[in-house]
């Protein structure tokens, strides 16, 4: 049987990091009481007029530039008409035949080699409210609607069907998030739904260039769900085709509970959105100067940074990827390295202990209470043999809590490794003298009890004894008689 080859394109909605909504001065906030961030514009009351948020335009342009799109001098808003309780105007203001930007590409180094996905378009649109149906939270027999999200600014990004599998699609989604967070276009919180993804999936015989019937899968709002849902959908379509059946052209929804996709509506009964130009908004004209000024504001992009970190510091791929995803993490890393730490050491501490402490404290790396310089000084004490690696982790936690210098903590807490031979010699002798039975066993040939003596010495010194010296002194003491 000919294996099937998936062909996948994504539509990603990204909530832009503005203070206020796209067309009115209501604050964008997910945490507030229902319907406390609404006004006549986002409630769609008669006579209310939209006024476009300048920052939303800038953030959409920045996103488009980061994706290598052409930003058009003129784009046009349109009304997309449909009825749903969370859309109070009866239409969504979006861009249709003249989007803000077209023709970009996102490239990255994937697990199996370089990846390249073309971006068809990027346009601005407003979000809808949220409706809750019957259920534990919803009222009996009614739909309850909160309009706080109504009018929140979104960039919709549409890819070409360049993805050939579920893992590649999830990888793209993650790289896209990383890129848009890096340019400051979105806060990128998956929990708060700042990025939401729909996928168009079809199968064709491997090697063929004829496209199969596409199915749209909605509500893929995390990297993991995206991958699971697409895997399931690919299997579902393959089973139909293997049995000689025909895939229906339809919209399906991912159901988290069952791990399946369910039919929502077939395309034959799909909505006719009757797009027309938004009469309340003249075309959006963007000057070449504006675009140039925004282009100048673009930071180093994650993929370029990853390549640079890997090349100039010889970092392993995974560490380079983890550090390069976040400009602040990369800056922290480079500061630790310039404070004198070896790049691999620096990367290990940042992706290990520092990442763990940040996660526990729910902080971002630029809020870390331990400065790059202090981290470098701590690790230098390990390299000098003053403290053990395990002890250094403890000192780091104290630095994190108190903000004290590593040297001060090591000195005041007496954490420095005990390397004084006279001092350790006394403790070793004490351990030997206190355990005559074990000594006899050792001398009788049971050399495994050596570990027991090491343990006694470590216990007596709170784990601070230098193990190499302890081994040497113990061996000498036990061989004595």
């Amino acid at each position: 049987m000919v294996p099937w080859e998936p062909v996948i394109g994504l539509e990603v909605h990204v909530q832009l990091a503005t203070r206020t909504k796209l067309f009115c001065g209501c604050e964008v906030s997910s945490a507030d009481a229902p319907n406390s961030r609404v006004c006549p514009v986002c409630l769609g009351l008669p006579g209310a007029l939209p006024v476009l948020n300048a920052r939303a335009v800038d953030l959409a342009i920045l996103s488009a530039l980061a994706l290598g799109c052409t930003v058009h001098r003129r784009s046009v808003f349109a009304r997309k008409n449909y009825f749903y309780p969370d859309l109070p105007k009866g239409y969504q203001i979006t861009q249709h035949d003249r989007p803000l930007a077209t023709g970009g590409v996102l490239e990255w180094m994937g697990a199996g080699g370089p990846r390249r996905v073309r971006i068809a378009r990027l346009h601005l649109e407003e979000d809808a409210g949220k409706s809750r149906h019957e259920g534990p939270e919803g009222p009996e027999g009614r739909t309850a609607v909160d309009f706080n999200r109504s009018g929140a600014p979104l960039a919709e990004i549409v890819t070409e069907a360049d993805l050939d599998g579920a893992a590649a699609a999830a990888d793209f989604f993650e790289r896209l998030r990383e890129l848009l967070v890096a340019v400051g276009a979105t806060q990128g919180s998956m929990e708060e739904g700042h990025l939401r993804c729909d996928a168009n999936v079809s199968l064709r015989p491997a090697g063929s260039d004829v496209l199969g019937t596409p199915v749209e899968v909605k509500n893929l709002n995390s990297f993991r769900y995206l991958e699971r849902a697409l895997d399931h959908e690919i299997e579902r379509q393959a089973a139909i085709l293997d049995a000689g059946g025909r895939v229906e052209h339809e919209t399906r929804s991912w159901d988290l509970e069952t791990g399946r996709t369910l039919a929502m509506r077939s395309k034959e009964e799909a909505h006719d959105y009757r797009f027309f130009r938004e009469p309340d908004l003249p075309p959006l004209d963007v000057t070449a100067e504006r675009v140039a000024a925004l282009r100048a504001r673009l930071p180093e992009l994650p993929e370029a940074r990853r390549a640079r970190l890997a090349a100039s510091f010889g970092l392993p791929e995974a560490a380079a990827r983890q550090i390069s995803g976040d400009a602040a993490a990369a800056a922290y890393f480079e500061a630790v390295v310039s404070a004198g730490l070896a790049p691999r050491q620096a990367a290990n501490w940042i992706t290990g202990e520092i990442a763990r402490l940040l996660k526990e404290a729910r902080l971002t790396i630029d809020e870390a209470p331990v400065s790059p310089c202090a981290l470098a000084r701590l690790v230098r004490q390990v390299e000098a043999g003053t403290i053990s690696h395990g002890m250094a982790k403890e000192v780091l936690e104290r630095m994190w809590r108190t903000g004290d210098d590593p040297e001060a903590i090591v000195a005041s807490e007496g954490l420095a490794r005990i390397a004084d031979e006279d001092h350790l010699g006394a403790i070793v002798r004490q351990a030997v003298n206190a355990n005559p039975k074990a000594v006899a066993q050792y001398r009788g040939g049971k050399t495994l009890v050596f570990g027991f003596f090491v343990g006694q010495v470590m216990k007596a010194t709170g784990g601070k004894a230098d193990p190499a010296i302890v081994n040497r002194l113990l061996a000498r003491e036990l061989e004595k008689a």
Partner: protein
Amino acid sequence: MSLTPADVSRIAHLARLELSPAESDAMLGQLNGFFRIVEQMSAVDTRGVEPLYTPLAAVQPAALRLRDDGVTEADQRSANQASAPAVEDGLFLVPKVIE
């Protein structure tokens, strides 16, 4: 082109309008009247004419006005919900809708 009664009933359904047969007939006549005007306009040669995105542009430069990203609206929930038929815990209630 002219619309058929089926077109009118489809458009009415999309707009969630319930039309009586008499209203449908009247609507068909009116809509086809509009289309006749559009057909007359289509006969005009517009080659080389820049499309007019808004009639405003004919009288004044119609650049889109942008606003700064500042909060201007306060919480007006009770006023906003004063005319709502049903509310509960700050939420608007509407007849149940499940897609």
